[in-house]
């Protein structure tokens, strides 16, 4: 039995969608918008810690990776404070504009660069709240040539060389066994997440965030970023699908009158159904 377990967790910094304020012409007011760690990625970190705790006899090392601008150090620091052992920021101007196909490639390359072949698990959030392509984790697995299990909601048990998890699909819950050396995509299961404690913060102060660039990872400029990406945005436009709606707006009604208007519509329908 192997005594060491090496886990890589990939996390992303995203704008806080909970804070969106709309201006009068329906654009987003981007001033004061905060960046936060992507929600599913918090569960990915939680999963890594749960696995570490479940493997009592193994010495587990958790390394966290994030691709993004320097600002993403914020979430890497947070991960270190939670108790991760190493943190890597993958950052380079030439990475800008990469689609999820290229992002997977870069993250997989970073994992290979750091571990060569010596890792046991990669854990990702199932999707990012700002793009939600849900492609990046799976893409990393393909690039690393390891099995992948998606939509994981919880850890069931750990064995010497395998892990058992619950996977949530639309019409079934699956209990799946995956080998060590595989990739897990984790969803938000509303479990309680741990918070960094003071000791965690203090210990994390001593840990450095290592920087990985395109050069380190052996990428040429034209292989990554917009140039390297197979997809591109041809155009973007405003959504006017519903311009044929009535848009009768009441702004100074009592709540009681508002409720009556709604009930009238409901009643109309019921009358219609009864006919």
């Amino acid at each position, binding site marked *: 039995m192997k005594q060491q377990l090496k886990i890589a967790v990939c996390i992303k910094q995203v*704008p806080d969608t*909970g804070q*969106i304020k*709309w201006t009068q012409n*329906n654009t*987003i007011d981007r001033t004061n918008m905060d960046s936060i760690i992507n*929600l599913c990625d918090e569960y990915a970190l939680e999963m890594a810690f749960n696995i570490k705790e479940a493997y009592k006899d193994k010495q587990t090392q958790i390394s966290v990776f994030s691709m993004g601008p320097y600002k993403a150090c914020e979430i890497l620091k947070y991960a270190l404070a939670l108790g991760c052992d190493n943190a890597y920021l993958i950052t380079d101007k030439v990475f800008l504009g990469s689609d*999820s*196909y290229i992002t997977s490639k870069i993250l997989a390359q970073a994992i290979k660069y750091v571990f060569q072949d010596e890792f046991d698990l990669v854990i990702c959030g199932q999707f990012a*709240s700002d793009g939600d392509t*849900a*492609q990046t984790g*799976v*893409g990393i697995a*393909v690039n690393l040539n390891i*099995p*992948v*299990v998606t*939509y994981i909601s919880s850890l069931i048990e750990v064995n010497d060389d395998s892990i058992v998890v619950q996977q*949530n699909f*639309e*019409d*079934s*819950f*699956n*209990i*799946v*066994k995956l*080998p060590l050396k*595989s990739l897990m995509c984790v969803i*938000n299961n509303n479990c309680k997440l741990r918070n960094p404690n003071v000791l965690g913060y203090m210990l994390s102060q001593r840990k450095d965030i290592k920087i990985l660039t395109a050069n380190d990872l052996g990428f040429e400029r034209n292989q990554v970023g917009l140039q390297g*990406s*197979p*997809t*591109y945005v*041809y*155009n*973007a*436009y*405003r*959504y006017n*699908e*519903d311009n044929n*709606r009535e*848009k009768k*707006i*009441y*702004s*100074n*009604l009592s*709540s*009681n009158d*508002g*409720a009556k*208007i*709604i*009930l009238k*519509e*409901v009643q109309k*329908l019921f009358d219609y159904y009864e006919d």
Partner: protein
Amino acid sequence: MNDILIFGEFSISNKLRPCVFQLLSKANYLKNKLDDSKLKLLILSPSDLNFDEIINELKYYNIDEIIIVKNDNFKEFNSDYYYNCIKNIVLEVNPKIFLIGGTNIGRTIAPMISNSLHTGLTADCIELDINDEKNLSATRPTFGGELMATIWSKTYPQMATVRENVFKIEKFDENNPTIIFKDYNFQEYKSKLSLIKQIKREINNDLANARIILSGGMGLKNKEGFAKLENLANIMGAQIGGSRLIVEAGFASSNIQIGQTGQSVAADLYIAFGISGAIQHLCGIKNCKKIIAINNDPNAPIFNHCDIGIVDDAALVIEQLENLLSQKV
């Protein structure tokens, strides 16, 4: 290579999922815009499944070719076996466009195929078309919910996923597709993943067919706020829905999420309480007949996309509705 390939996903009860028929319907529109294009459907199946009924059902979608690959490893979903086989079939068929339903299985398989074939994939599209260059043009909302983005792909096959019920089913005159049965040989290959147990889940299909939906967003503030709306829906006999943020906040369960990455609905009456009206939400409700919005911000975008708007505190309106309804009975 102008062909369009669709992935024919089965539900747990060995029926083709609705998204398959929806994609086939849309593919007909795409095919008509391409020269010399064939519409093909790929189905993976366990060896003993009878196909008579399934093939009968498939006669109304102008399909040119149905490829049925049989192997007992396809009895249940295993990403290794599915990936391995689909990838090889795609290489063989060499389609221009490959479309997959945006289900959990589809969203697992699609990126495996696109990454291994080094091609682009656009997820959760809400519209598909063929552009002047005779390529796939895939549209999805951009982050933030202000704009729609049309995405093109430089590589082939051009891949996209579309969630269930985004497209409507459209039937055509009966035809006789060519049926190709194939046995797939995994040779020595053995997946290291195994399914230990499968627990059937009660599917909440009520939303897709609901006539009246009360839907809650972050304007309901907390779990209690959302519970009050649920209670009102019970009294009214309506279904309950919600925005993604209220689901993410843990105030509502994820199977009631409506929108681009949740369910698409087509109710007669959709009433949105405290929902801002981001595009990702709006594109899930565009097929609703009537939309009423209650929001205390007169600038909320949802007021541009509703039939009746009420600028007010959602909680107060819910309370009044409950009062009025209790007077009635």
